[in-house]
């Protein structure tokens, strides 16, 4: 559906060039819900806007449905209106001088993909009913609430029956409760329509709820592409691991192929790859097991619970082992408020990366 090869784009900021996209390769298949996830300045919005034709990349190629939309080598740059897409903007971009129905109708009556006169009304109704705004047709758009504007924007984007729907942080301007509700609706609706979605967000929870696959981006590059489980469990780099939820880092030196000397003692790891020299190891807080006694002697350390916070359905404890403090997440009844405890770190749950300059600061 979407095929992107070696896409590059530099921005001129003052007198220096900032690389927004540094050679992006991406394939999104038909019907897939694909999320671009990254912090601000990672290039995710630039990538989305390039697909829309709102940004002109410096080099590379973009094709949609097999049709080349942009190619620097072949000097092709189709304008946005020729790409046949629907798009929801972060600010919603609802035209304030029109009514709700006119907002949806303008693209149907004057756009490149306009309908015959008789069909327009029915299509407007259908699009508005998809987002449950049936009775709002004649309402001036600027009088709508943020959540309603968001739905009009979605209706407008879906009205042209696009094969591809682009969404640029569509939930970031909604309050927390509404966001959850709209998130679920978007997922249901796009599933039901079988539409391909390219979705930009900086919120990892949002990404995990919505996505079939996620591309994690930073500084104009894609760090890893995968489904939510893979990204969480098998991150390709410490950066990706950091980005998805919290994680404890340990620094150490390889003793042999599976034993590492660390600040809390000798740790056994289980990895497919051979490492040498200095490494960093990550353990998610929910994998830090607090035990009373265990037959398993591997990766077992004695520590001290410094403080425990109860959060209702779970508890987090700060556990000190030698001079290192680890965060442990447990079921509330398993937690111990303070005092001595045994800590078990299951070897299959430990991720390992070679230590470079970038990893030195991790804690």
């Amino acid at each position: 559906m979407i095929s992107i090869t070696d896409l590059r784009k530099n921005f001129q900021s003052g007198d220096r060039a900032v690389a927004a996209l540094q050679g992006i390769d991406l394939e999104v298949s038909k019907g897939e819900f694909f999320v671009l996830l990254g912090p601000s300045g990672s290039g995710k919005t630039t990538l989305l806007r390039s697909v829309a034709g709102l940004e002109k990349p410096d080099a590379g190629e973009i094709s949609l449905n097999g049709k080349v939309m942009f190619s620097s080598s072949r000097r092709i740059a189709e304008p946005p209106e020729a790409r046949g897409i629907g798009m929801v903007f972060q600010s919603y971009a609802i035209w304030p001088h029109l009514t709700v129905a006119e907002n949806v109708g303008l693209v149907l009556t004057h756009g490149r993909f306009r309908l015959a006169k008789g069909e327009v009304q029915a299509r407007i109704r259908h699009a508005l009913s998809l987002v449950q705004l049936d009775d709002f047709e004649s309402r001036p758009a600027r009088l709508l609430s943020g959540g309603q504007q968001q739905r009009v924007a979605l209706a407008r984007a879906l009205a042209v029956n696009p094969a591809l729907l682009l969404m640029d942080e569509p939930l970031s301007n909604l309050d927390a409760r509404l966001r959850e509700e709209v998130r679920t609706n978007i997922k249901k609706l796009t599933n039901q329509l079988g539409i391909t979605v390219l979705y930009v967000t900086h919120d990892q929870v949002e990404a995990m709820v919505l996505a079939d696959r996620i591309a994690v981006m930073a500084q104009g590059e894609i760090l890893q592409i995968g489904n939510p489980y893979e990204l969480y469990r098998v991150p390709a780099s410490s950066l990706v691991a950091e980005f998805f939820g919290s994680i404890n880092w340990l620094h150490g030196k390889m003793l042999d192929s599976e034993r590492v000397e660390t600040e809390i003692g000798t740790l056994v790891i289980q990895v497919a790859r051979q490492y040498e020299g200095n490494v960093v190891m990550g353990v998610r807080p929910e994998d830090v097991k607090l035990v009373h006694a265990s037959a398993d002697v591997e990766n077992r350390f004695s520590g001290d619970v410094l403080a425990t916070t109860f959060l209702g359905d779970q508890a987090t404890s700060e556990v000190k082992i030698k001079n290192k403090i680890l965060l442990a997440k447990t079921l509330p009844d398993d937690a111990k408020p303070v005092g001595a405890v045994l800590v078990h770190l299951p070897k299959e749950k430990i991720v390992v990366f070679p230590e470079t300059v970038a990893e030195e600061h991790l804690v």
Partner: protein
Amino acid sequence: MKGRWLFVSIAAVGLVPVVAFLLIVFWMGFWQGSPGDPVVYTLKHYRELFTDGSTYRTLLNTLGFASTTVLVSLFFAVPTAWLVERTDLPGKNLIFALVTIGALVPTFFTSMGWVFLLHPRIGVINKFLMEWFGLAQAPFNIASLLGMGWVEGLGLSSIAFIMIVATYRTMDPALEEAARVHGLGILRTLRYVTLPLTFPGIIAASIYIFTIGLSAFEVPAIIGMSNKIFTFSTFIFYKIQPQEELPSYGMAGAVSSILVVLALLLSWGYFRTLRFSHRYAVVTGKGYRPRLVELGKRGWLLAWLFLGGYFVVAKLLPFLLLVWASLLRFFQPPSWAALEQVSLRNFYGLPWNLLFQGAWNTVILMIAVPTLTLILCLAISWTVLRSGLKWRVTFDAVAFLPHAVPHLILAIAAVFASLFLLRDVVSLYGSLTILILVYTLSRISFATRIINNSLAQIHPELEEAAFVGGLRLLQVMRKILLPLLKPALVYAWLWMALLCFRELTMASVLVTSQGNVTLPMIVWGLWLGGSLNQAAAANLVVLGFMLPAVILYLYFGRRTRFTEAG
């Protein structure tokens, strides 16, 4: 808050005269007599006004002139603003710089240039066209409503440009992008989204320009008056300084009252439309630049032809003609024969003593007026935004009056007050002090708006933190507010200083002696006396005096680009 009443009092000192002058104008219209006579009240002036045919002719002239002004300024400003804000045209900073400097070029300067270009008898373009095509009559006449509106419109196109750029800036570019993405081409997006959304902004700018045109003085005074084409402003001026009869302050007061009411109504309309256009403004908070329309090489060429033509016509041609005229004893179109006559005689013959006196007075004005205005306006802004005073809205409304009330009328009220009311108290008539006072009052709206905008962006907690820490109000002003407001203050100071060089309207009635003569008045005096070529030379000397100040402005003011001109 200790010290609060000090600020409120200073604000009142600036605003009370504004109200007083306005009342004086209305009062003048019912008043008859000369200084020293017993006061007689009458409705005679209004009766005469409404029964005299020349009133209606003047009204039609003024409306025609102001409408032409609006059309001409929009014709240049709207495309220029669109090119700068929404296309990939290179050299946008240059365009901004040229337009800003363009707003500083005195209107009397370009007016004289255009007389040399398009006057039916001596205009260069007319003469060339008549010669080439064998015409019996001059094809153009600058001394007409269209001609005057053309010159005024070119002058005001800078302000129109800046206002329309602002409406583009406050519009969320995603509104246009949404149209493009969903299938509307460039032209349909312009037609169905961009234009309807910028329309209120363009209407607001039109009303603003129309209001200025309604009371504009310099162009009608330099081009119209000698050809007996009067607009309201020159009509009023003529009543105050007639050539044969006695001055009729009563008549001037009546006409001024009508003009003030008209201007206030228009300003009300302006704010209504502006509020309407702000409903469409969306602050996105997203830093991305809007998708720029790609013009292509041919588009760039056309755009630069348009912009180049605009700058040549609006500024360069009048300037070149003034230079040429200043080098000749009698004006004639450029030719080899005329070239032999070129000399610096006009410059030697200028009244240099007077010019230096004028330059000295202008320097005093340049320093005194902005400084005084800023002190008053800081107090006004603080009262409006920070004092918590019940009456602060009134302060805000009064501070706006000098913008709506034509400056010529402010000056006439001041002259009237100095002659009839304050004669035995202080002698202001013909002094430099009266110039300083009236110029200052006339700038209150502009400076208050600049400081208001800046102060509104400073969170009150910054000051509250200092109060909690034990600082007193004056210390907070000195240590917190002044440093934070500094860029805006520096910019406003420089801009107001430069405006002193181009101020002819108020000077035309306030300058009555050698003691308070200003540079523009000397130029105008030469022009009225018929020494057109000497006036051209004097004009260039004035520009020469102005140049160092402009360089200072560009150097210090470049960081704070101005959003609204006063």
